[in-house]
């Protein structure tokens, strides 16, 4: 029930932003649509609604955004230079990394962050073993431990505090 309520609030907020400036017509339709969506998919949205009440999680998320954007920016410069270099200095391969994150949301965010950062993107996740398969455009180490340290750790630390 609480899960549905949270989804309703988020849905209505996004609807209001999409139909800016707010007026009565849009607000009424928005309430109907958001309620319908929340009713249908509400129980899928979050399994632990209590997490939404923790203030520290939001603060960590605010810290996570600039870290992520900076990594994202570096990733782009890096890939752009590799693409434009006439010799194309790439050394691709798929490596395996370990993660200690368990929840769906945390894993999704980890995979998305990895995909958008320096020369790496996520090919597959095995949640049972806590393993991610990462395609790396410039493999620095084929060893699982070493690769984990280079790719996953900087995000894992923060994401654990946000979503776990």
């Amino acid at each position, binding site marked *: 029930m609480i899960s549905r309520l949270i989804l309703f609030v988020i849905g209505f907020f996004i609807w209001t932003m*999409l139909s800016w400036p707010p007026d009565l017509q849009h607000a009424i339709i928005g309430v109907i649509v958001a309620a319908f969506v929340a009713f249908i998919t509400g129980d899928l949205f979050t399994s632990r609604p209590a997490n939404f009440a923790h203030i520290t999680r939001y603060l960590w998320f605010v810290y996570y955004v600039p870290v992520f954007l900076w990594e*994202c920016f570096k990733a782009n410069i890096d890939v752009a230079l590799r693409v434009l270099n006439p010799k194309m200095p790439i050394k*691709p*391969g*798929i490596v395996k990394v370990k993660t200690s994150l368990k929840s769906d949301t945390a894993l999704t965010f980890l995979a998305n962050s990895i*995909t958008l950062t320096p020369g790496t993107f996520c090919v*597959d996740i095995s949640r049972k073993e806590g393993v991610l398969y990462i395609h790396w*455009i410039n493999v620095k180490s084929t060893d699982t431990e070493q690769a984990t340290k280079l790719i996953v750790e900087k995000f894992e630390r923060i994401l654990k505090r946000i979503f776990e």
Partner: protein
Amino acid sequence: MNNIIGYTFVVLGLMFDIIGCIGLIRLPDVYNRLQATTKCVTMGTCSILFGTLIIKGFTATGLKAFLCILFLLLTAPVAAHALSRGAHISGVKLWDKSVCDKYEEDK
């Protein structure tokens, strides 16, 4: 002033988009091409939208641009993930000079 900053972001975004497209043509296999397209094109498009947000401010257009950034950041990696996984499972090989393929070994 806002216009100048905004247009800088738009031009930067266009540059990244072009580099992404060049990468799509130059890089050797599916996975490397996905690298170029997901990163450069996501960042490029987000940058263009962010420029729009700065030029327009928090008006109807600006807010929609901002929402587009959020949706793009959430969905583009998922698309890349789905494409690469699909390609690997249906047997698309890595480039000859690839260093290792742990995914193949673990299957």
